[in-house]
């Protein structure tokens, strides 16, 4: 079936696609914009937090990994496809549906630092972005305003940011204990920026700290693009087609001409479009572009997560237990910027995380059964503080996304990851873990343990369609335009040339807004 020509066809209704759709529809209301999404809208009335057996959902149909969701055999609201991650040290995590991974994220919302955009010039590693922090700053501010950010202005780790519209999410006893530790050492700490309402805001409730942020937010206190950008984009006239799986970007004579997709009824549909915009993030985007025959030496390469490890401290005092928001309390950027004396370039982000639910923590123990496991849980439950150590993963061409030889049930070629942790990451994480344990002891922990690598943290899928000026080493330019194919744009995390050491959501949204404005100017 061939449909009528539209101006813009967007693939994927996650953070990038949503922010782009809203901004372009606001700037150019005359354009006919459609978005095609493989999943549907989340149903908040069916989310696990409303059920007594909510804890087990994160091990089954609401697992963070699409592979685990598929393996559970339970019907998941996420429209998943398997990913061969057997050759990847980190396991890819994502949510497939309207809102993308913002449905299941922790909504920790830091920005990159100015230096993150200039790693080649400053430190001789990675690559410079085609624009600076200053160029992106107005879009960070706009994205903050649209998503709703709780936090506190005045953080000395960043250039000045506008007043946050809500005060920080409650630190809890856990956050205050960690603050005590950072303070004793004279290190930086600050309440996180969180895309979570600490008070009722923008028609959404304030967070009541229920705990299971990663299995969707029942109250809508946590920002996700099905609640923020999409209602506004739809009101602007954007058409969103759900449960439709794009099979191919149709390319003729070097130009994108539209998309071919399988609709909810299984019919093959051709949607002609003047411009195609892909927002499938670091795996979905290269999978589709490679399957569509886009030829670019860098496509699929330079996959970056963030190196991730944990240190946990056990305290005699009673803390908060498994309450939310799970990823949002306080953080430290004392060691974020390069210090050559450490033996590695760039830095680490120390993020104080709240306790896991009892069941999840039980399953994460090395030996999760028997008396010692139960004794350990008894000792740590409501008495532990975890510090997530993230480092700046650097681009390496051998870390990549490729297509498999077989076709998956969704009609697209299978997808494979190859990713090996670098010596740089190992050294950075070791350093970060040492500092995290130091802080925990200073805060009063009587015992600390380290989890030297946390494989199930691969939310940040970045770098596989990187921006740059040179078509030999990059896939797209600074406006997301694919070098090799005219009228084809990328608007998601796959564009990142480097990734800093912090969560990318805030930057994905800001970049997508900038790309929409660049296109609007171009079309004027």
């Amino acid at each position, binding site marked *: 079936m061939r449909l009528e020509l539209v101006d813009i066809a967007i693939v994927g209704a996650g953070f990038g696609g949503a922010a782009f759709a809203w901004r372009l529809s606001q700037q150019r209301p005359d354009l006919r914009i459609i978005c095609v999404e493989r999943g549907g809208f989340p149903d908040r009335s069916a989310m696990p937090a409303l059920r007594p057996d909510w*804890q087990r959902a994160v091990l089954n149909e609401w697992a963070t990994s699409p592979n685990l969701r598929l393996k559970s055999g339970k019907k998941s609201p996420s429209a998943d496809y398997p990913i061969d991650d057997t050759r990847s040290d980190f396991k890819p995590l994502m949510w497939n549906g309207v809102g993308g991974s913002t449905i299941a994220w922790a909504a920790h919302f830091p920005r990159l630092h*100015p230096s993150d955009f200039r790693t080649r010039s400053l430190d001789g590693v990675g690559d410079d972005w085609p624009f600076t922090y200053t160029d992106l700053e107005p879009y960070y501010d706009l994205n903050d305003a649209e998503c709703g950010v709780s936090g506190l202005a005045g953080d*000395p780790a960043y250039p000045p940011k506008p007043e946050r519209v809500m005060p920080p999410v409650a*630190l809890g006893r856990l956050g205050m204990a960690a*603050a005590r530790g950072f303070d004793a050492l004279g290190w930086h700490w600050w309440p996180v920026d969180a895309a979570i309402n600490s008070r009722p805001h923008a028609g959404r409730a304030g967070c009541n700290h229920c705990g299971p942020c990663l299995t969707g937010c029942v109250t809508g206190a946590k920002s996700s693009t099905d609640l923020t950008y999409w209602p506004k984009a739809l009101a602007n006239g954007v058409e969103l087609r759900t449960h439709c799986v794009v099979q191919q970007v149709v390319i003729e004579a070097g130009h994108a001409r539209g998309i071919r997709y399988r609709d909810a009824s299984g019919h093959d549909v051709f949607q002609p479009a003047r411009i195609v915009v892909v927002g499938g993030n670091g795996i979905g985007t290269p999978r589709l572009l490679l399957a569509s025959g886009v030829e670019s030496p860098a496509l699929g390469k330079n996959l970056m997560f963030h190196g991730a490890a944990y240190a946990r401290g056990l305290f005699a005092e009673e803390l908060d237990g498994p*309450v939310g928001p799970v990823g949002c309390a306080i953080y430290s950027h004392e060691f974020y910027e390069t210090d050559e004396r450490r033996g590695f370039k760039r830095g680490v982000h120390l993020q104080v995380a709240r306790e896991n639910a009892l069941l999840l923590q*039980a399953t994460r123990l090395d030996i*999760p059964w*028997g*008396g010692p496991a139960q004794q350990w849980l008894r000792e740590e439950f409501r008495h532990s503080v975890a510090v997530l150590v993230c480092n700046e993963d650097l681009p390496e061409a051998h870390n990549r996304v490729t297509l498999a030889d077989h076709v998956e049930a969704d009609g697209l070629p299978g997808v494979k990851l190859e990713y090996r942790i670098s010596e740089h990451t190992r050294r950075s994480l070791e350093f970060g873990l040492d500092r995290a344990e130091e802080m925990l002891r200073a805060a009063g922990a009587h015992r600390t343990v380290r989890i030297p690598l946390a494989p199930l943290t691969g939310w940040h899928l970045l770098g596989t369609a990187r921006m740059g000026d040179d078509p030999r080493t990059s896939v797209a330019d600074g406006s997301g335009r694919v070098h090799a194919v005219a009228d084809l744009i990328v608007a998601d995390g796959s564009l990142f040339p480097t990734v800093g050491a912090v969560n990318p959501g805030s930057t994905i949204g800001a970049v997508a807004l900038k790309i929409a404005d660049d296109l609007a100017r171009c079309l004027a």
Partner: protein
Amino acid sequence: MTNLFFEAVVDTILPGEDEASCAASPLPSGSQAGVTLEPRNAEEDAVLRLIAERAGGEEAFRRASLAAQTAVLANVEKERFEIFRAIVSNLLQHYYEAPIVLAAMGWREGAAQPLGHKIPEADEATLKRLEAVRARGAIWRPAS
């Protein structure tokens, strides 16, 4: 295989805490918490039969000390890791959602919503610490 054998396996995996433990509310064993075991597929069935075989029979497993039972399970875990851990995971899911277990751990049973939880905002001492951080000045690295 008998229910008594299954119960013994459950209580080896989840032995709970005895009354002499320092906990105000000792954790119940798996069977005391109402957790039951039934193989969900042929692979799990085979692993459970292997446990019985390695112990010298179901009855011998039941009569063995907890230390001996644990040693049998640890050996079977080494041989059939994935299936054994699947059995464990299934039992943990029932156990750590049981109201009696949550109560013993001092936590609330039931859905996470709509009640949520109350957690404290930053106290005065913490806010003072924050002022000290601010006073130390900018630590970000300029880059243009």
